[in-house]
């Protein structure tokens, strides 16, 4: 490559680099700075250095604890549910009549904007007139205050997340299943394996790298969860359904203007996400080596 080409190549890439640097690196440095300072927009004072004060405050903060608790609950309940349902449905509709149509139908939830999904579910969860309470009443269950009571509000958000993102998990694993040569399982069945054994011993191990990929992507997405919480429960009742992003928003830009504390929380969140992104990149490279799909 001649020097002339190199110059043009760099010129071509500048329009990408400049905004990305300005809008990611600068905010990041600014946030690190703020996280070591007491800075509240509501008070007309310049940032004051307090060392690790903001980070220490996280440990004492009941709402932060509730946020971490709810995030952990999402990871422990919603995530495995999405993976299991995703695999189950992929396996269920395979070879079915009209599977293309069924597949497109199942994908709809992940295609509609989260805000729109939220208003649909907000109606479904309605205490007085909501269809969910109606279906439950058909089974003889009394009306449930879905969004007003603490365990049910958490359950409600989990349900919406499962509804919206199982299709994504399903699609990834379904494509994975499709890419496994049918001869592999056919040969096993000819050799006397049951279809369950073929799934467990041949297909699942081949899918494993892909399962890791969706697992990590979903994990990162759960840490970013915001729209649904904002729209459906406002993080409530109390702090029961605060997602990480929602709590940062609340502390920094909505109910409070405590930029210093919100920055410390953001740094914590970023640290976890960056770690996960690095793991993801490793898995993706591993996957490329395995040449699956």
């Amino acid at each position, binding site marked *: 490559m001649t020097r002339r*080409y190199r110059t*043009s*190549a*760099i010129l*071509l*890439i500048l329009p*990408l680099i400049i*905004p*990305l640097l300005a*809008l*990611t690196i600068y*905010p990041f440095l600014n*946030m690190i700075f703020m996280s070591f300072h007491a800075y509240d927009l509501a008070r007309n004072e310049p940032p004051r250095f307090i060392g690790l004060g903001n980070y220490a405050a996280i440990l004492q903060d009941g709402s932060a604890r509730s946020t971490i608790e709810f995030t952990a609950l999402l990871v422990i309940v919603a995530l495995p549910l999405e993976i299991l349902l995703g695999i189950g449905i992929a396996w*269920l*509709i395979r070879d079915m009549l009209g599977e293309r149509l069924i597949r497109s*139908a199942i*994908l*709809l*939830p992940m*295609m*509609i*904007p*989260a*805000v*729109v*999904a*939220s*208003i*649909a*579910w907000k*109606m*479904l969860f309605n205490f*007085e007139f*909501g*269809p969910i309470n*109606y279906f439950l009443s058909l089974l003889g269950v009394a009306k449930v205050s879905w969004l007003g009571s603490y365990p049910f509000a958490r359950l409600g958000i989990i349900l919406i997340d499962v*509804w919206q993102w199982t299709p994504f998990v399903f*699609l990834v694993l379904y*494509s994975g299943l499709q890419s496994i040569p049918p001869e592999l399982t056919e040969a096993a069945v000819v050799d006397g394996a049951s279809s369950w054994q073929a799934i467990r011993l041949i297909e699942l191990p081949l899918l494993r790298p892909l399962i890791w*990929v969706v697992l990590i*992507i979903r994990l990162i997405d759960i840490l*970013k969860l*915001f729209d649904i919480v*904002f*729209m459906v429960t406002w993080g409530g009742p109390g702090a029961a359904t605060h997602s*990480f*992003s929602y709590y*940062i928003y609340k502390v*920094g*830009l909505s109910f409070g203007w405590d*930029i210093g504390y919100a*920055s410390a929380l*953001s740094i914590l*969140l970023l640290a976890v996400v*960056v770690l996960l*992104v690095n793991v*993801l*990149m490793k898995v*993706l490279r591993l996957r490329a080596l395995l040449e699956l*799909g």
Partner: protein
Amino acid sequence: MRHFRSFAWKVAKTILVLLVLFFFLFPIYWLVITAFKPVPDWFGWPPIIVPRALTLDNFLGLKGAGSGGFTGQVTGSVANIWPYLRNSVIVATITALLSMLIGAMAAYAISRFKVGGVQFTNWIISIRMLPPIASALPLYLIFSKLQLLNTLFVLILAHLVFTLPLSTWILITFFNDIPKELDEAAFVDGASPLQAFVSVILPLSAPGLAAVSTLAFIQSWGEFLLALILTSNPNAQTLPIFLGRYITAYRIAWGPMAAAGLINMVPVVIFSLIMQRYLIRGLTFGAVK
């Protein structure tokens, strides 16, 4: 007996699929029918699951809503949606075009001249995974100092941060598939890299360009958090924020809310269905082709 068992299995499978479809489609079905329900049918017990009557009133505005049996505080109607719709169209369209243009130039430089190497490409991709709230907070501070809050310009800029990495990355994979001999032939004929890019690469990657601009449009159209933080009135607020305002009302008029939701949903669902393949490829970083 064997026959019976395989028959029973087929029936069970069909029932399971129907249950799955019900779970995933019912919320959408409910939103769609509510958007077309007349006022008295919004709230009912038992809920009206098969609509008795359909109307366009929820879209056209609530003339005589008070007399139609719906009392209580009704927040707005869909008639106020125009400024939000206009902002969404402008922001999403410009974001889509800029992502395509900037993404294509960068992808060409990376694909053909290996600018920056693997680490650099990884950095670009990973930006997409970062939580928007983390950049929203400092961006809010900067733009409020620059007095640029509540402008479409700032919103487009913020959306670009999340659409550009995806566009660039998808286009890199597209350009890599175009044989190098083609642009080398152009170089031999005396073309500059820019000329080769415009006259050889771009025409050959039209489907890729269409895909990335559509995907950027979808992302920008549905984006909520940044719009919520960076805008404050109908001069710059987008459709998702309009929906957010409905939610906060004391008593929510379901019909117009669902109608607004439908308006917000339809374009992206159509685009997503068309671009299914690329959507998935992008969402999984190419783990699924």
